[in-house]
């Protein structure tokens, strides 16, 4: 057995059955071994899509996603996706080929310092220099990626290591003296948290992406205590969006109720979130009345990083939430709820009816038609925020988007990864005309796999989010955001790849078109031509606070439509 075969055997032992990748010179021995391996390989058309697909595979399944690339340019194409996975704490293993060890450092063909370059974008990375280390390093990589705060791990295999004869053992133990994540939260701290909540008059529970595996426990805790719940963009689905205790997401484009609740709350219990600036706004003005912030996170470095924490609990969200649920008592907060209900009723996510088709109503129509039973992915931009606002996520792992890095182009590869992770389920990618064009070559991958993925391009002919900021903060100087004069005919583009394409322009045909899209077996691309100057509201301007929230589009309020 050579090193390449040992790599695949070791991956198999970790339970890997699928790799997203693209071959090239230095990873060829492993592709050769793949020919005889039971592991399935999905050929993406660009390595960036491979790492994104692996990310979505991990997020949708709760398992580890695996991607593979060749040295130099292939490996460098993973960088964006690795940082994306790092920011959103996703367990991904990236395998890269490298030039033979004798050529390392000589500026050889397709050589790059991949380990050096990917150090800041991975949880850990390593180059294998001895063929017999392969099983141990792979086992360690999976352990590191999937435990503690999950994250991407890159393993670099010089070509000669893949070709060398393997004489080692697969019977390996993971021994990392510097890595022993804390799983169980401190019981006294959990007790203190429960005491603080009991005393609170205006408590809230915020749940983030780290709570996706703790949905059941959080539900028990929330229902026992009656606490209002605010899932962040990454936490959507960790608590059902349609539940009466849900206030919607917070932050820059969050709900009025959620942002005002945070502003007025005296006690905040935060589980598995990192107080991103898109959530907090100006951090010095975040939650000014909260004398007690209880922060549950498995990564000690997140606690106290941005907001002052009164009660830190280092531990796994699922474990801690279960303990909280055990000790939870009904909170006496009816007055607080009166206020919250008022905000919820007066300011739901809404849009003004227009003669043209609007993104919000397209998303709403898909939510109604699917009754929320779909895995939804998105690109990055206005359509992403509209999807977060108008598709109500009731199940964990049903909303896969790029929260931390805000990576345009993730929608389609995310959809492919999610569809492969959960066969038989419907996947909808709400995408933007700008975002979609960053990875549209993956239509080929989708065609080949014939997955039940519905791509819904909300085409407003602009880089919509940038245009919105230019509208509000740059005196409507629309610098380099206009796409409509050179966008492709998206439906024809899909047809060129052999995928069903539909164009929707007529508002009256919305519901029948949604039905048509959903009824078609296999992939469909729907291009919905939507109102071109829509804004996402509410909005807290960058660097602002909850009090600075713009609830409605000021342009429309002042000038009418």
């Amino acid at each position, binding site marked *: 057995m050579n090193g390449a075969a040992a790599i695949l055997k070791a991956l198999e032992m970790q339970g890997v059955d699928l790799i997203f990748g693209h071959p090239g010179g230095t990873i060829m021995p492993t592709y050769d071994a793949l020919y005889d391996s039971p592991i399935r390989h999905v050929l993406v058309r660009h390595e960036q899509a491979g790492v994104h697909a692996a990310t979505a595979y991990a997020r949708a399944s709760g398992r580890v996603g695996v991607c593979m690339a060749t040295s130099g340019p292939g490996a460098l194409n993973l960088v964006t996706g690795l940082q994306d996975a790092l920011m959103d704490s996703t367990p991904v293993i990236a395998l890269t080929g490298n030039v033979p060890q004798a050529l390392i450092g000589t500026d050889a063909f397709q050589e790059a310092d991949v380990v050096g370059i990917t150090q800041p974008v991975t949880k850990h990375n*390593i180059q294998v220099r001895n063929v017999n280390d392969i099983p141990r390093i792979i086992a360690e990589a999976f352990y590191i990626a999937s435990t503690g705060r999950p994250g991407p791990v890159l393993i670099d295999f010089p070509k000669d290591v893949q070709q060398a004869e393997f004489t080692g053992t697969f019977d390996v133990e993971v021994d990392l003296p510097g890595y022993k994540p804390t799983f169980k939260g401190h019981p006294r701290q959990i007790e203190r948290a429960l005491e603080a909540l009991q005393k609170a008059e205006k408590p809230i529970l915020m749940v983030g992406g780290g709570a996706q595996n703790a949905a059941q426990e959080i539900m028990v805790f929330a229902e026992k205590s009656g606490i209002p719940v605010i899932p962040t963009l990454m936490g959507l689905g960790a608590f059902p969006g349609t539940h009466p205790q849900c206030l919607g997401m917070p932050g820059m484009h969050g709900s009025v109720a959620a942002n005002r609740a945070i502003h007025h709350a005296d006690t905040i219990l935060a589980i598995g979130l990192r107080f991103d600036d898109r959530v907090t706004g100006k951090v010095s003005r975040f939650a000014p009345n909260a004398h007690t912030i209880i922060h549950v996170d498995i990564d000690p470095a997140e606690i106290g990083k941005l907001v002052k924490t009164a009660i830190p609990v280092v531990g796994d969200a699922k474990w801690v939430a279960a303990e909280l649920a055990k000790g939870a008592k009904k909170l006496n907060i009816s007055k607080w709820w009166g206020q919250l209900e008022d905000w919820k009723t007066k300011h739901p996510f809404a849009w003004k009816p227009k003669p043209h088709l609007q993104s919000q109503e397209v998303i709403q129509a898909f939510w109604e038609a699917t009754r929320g039973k779909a895995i939804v992915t998105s690109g990055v931009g206005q359509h992403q925020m509209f999807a977060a606002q108008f598709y109500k996520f009731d199940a964990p792992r049903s909303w896969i988007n790029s929260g931390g890095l805000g990576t345009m182009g993730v929608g389609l590869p995310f959809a492919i990864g999610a569809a492969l992770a959960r066969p038989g389920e419907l996947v909808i990618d709400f995408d933007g005309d700008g975002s979609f064009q960053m990875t549209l070559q993956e239509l080929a991958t989708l065609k080949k796999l014939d997955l039940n993925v519905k791509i819904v391009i909300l085409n407003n002919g602009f880089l919509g989010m940038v245009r919105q900021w230019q509208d509000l903060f740059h005196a409507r100087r629309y610098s380099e955001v206009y796409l409509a004069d050179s966008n492709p005919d998206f439906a024809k583009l899909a047809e060129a790849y052999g995928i069903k394409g539909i164009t929707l322009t007529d508002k009256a045909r919305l519901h029948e078109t949604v039905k048509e899209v959903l009824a078609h077996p296999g992939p469909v691309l729907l291009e919905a031509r939507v109102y071109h100057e829509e804004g996402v509201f509410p909005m807290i301007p960058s660097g602002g606070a909850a009090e600075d929230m713009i609830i409605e589009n000021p342009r429309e309020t002042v000038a009418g439509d």
Partner: protein
Amino acid sequence: MRHLVSVLVQDNPGVLQRIAGLIARRGFNIESLAVGRTHQPGLSRISLVVSGDDAVLEQVEKQLNRLIEVIKVTDHAEPHVERELALVKVGIAGMEERLEVKDIAEAFRARIVDVARKSIIFELTGDSTKVNNFVEALRPYGLLEVMRTGAVGMSRGEQVLKVREKKAV
């Protein structure tokens, strides 16, 4: 405030780059960094001097702890021994100056390690303040070269930085 932080690491290839990169990337203000092997095979020890308030220090320690190869991090707030080695080359114009700088060196307990017609190299160990003072005392005579190692440190008494079995899950 200035803090001396000791970090025990697995001495895998690239570990120093990882630490230096993290410090730079997170925007921590680092004054010096010194690294060397320990008595245990496979383990190196790094001494970092960082400046910042308690919150900065806490983040430095927590971020360092996130690195897989970092085994233990300690901030030496307790009584500790701190040393830096400096080599200082001073230009000498004449006999009178030569005697003067020798007097200064004696006061600081610096050793002469090289003497040439127009220069002397002194070797000095001490904490950073002592080295600073020595360099300043010699500055009027014409410093030709100053080479400092950065501070290294160790807690006094029985407290040691060692591989400790962290509480597993």
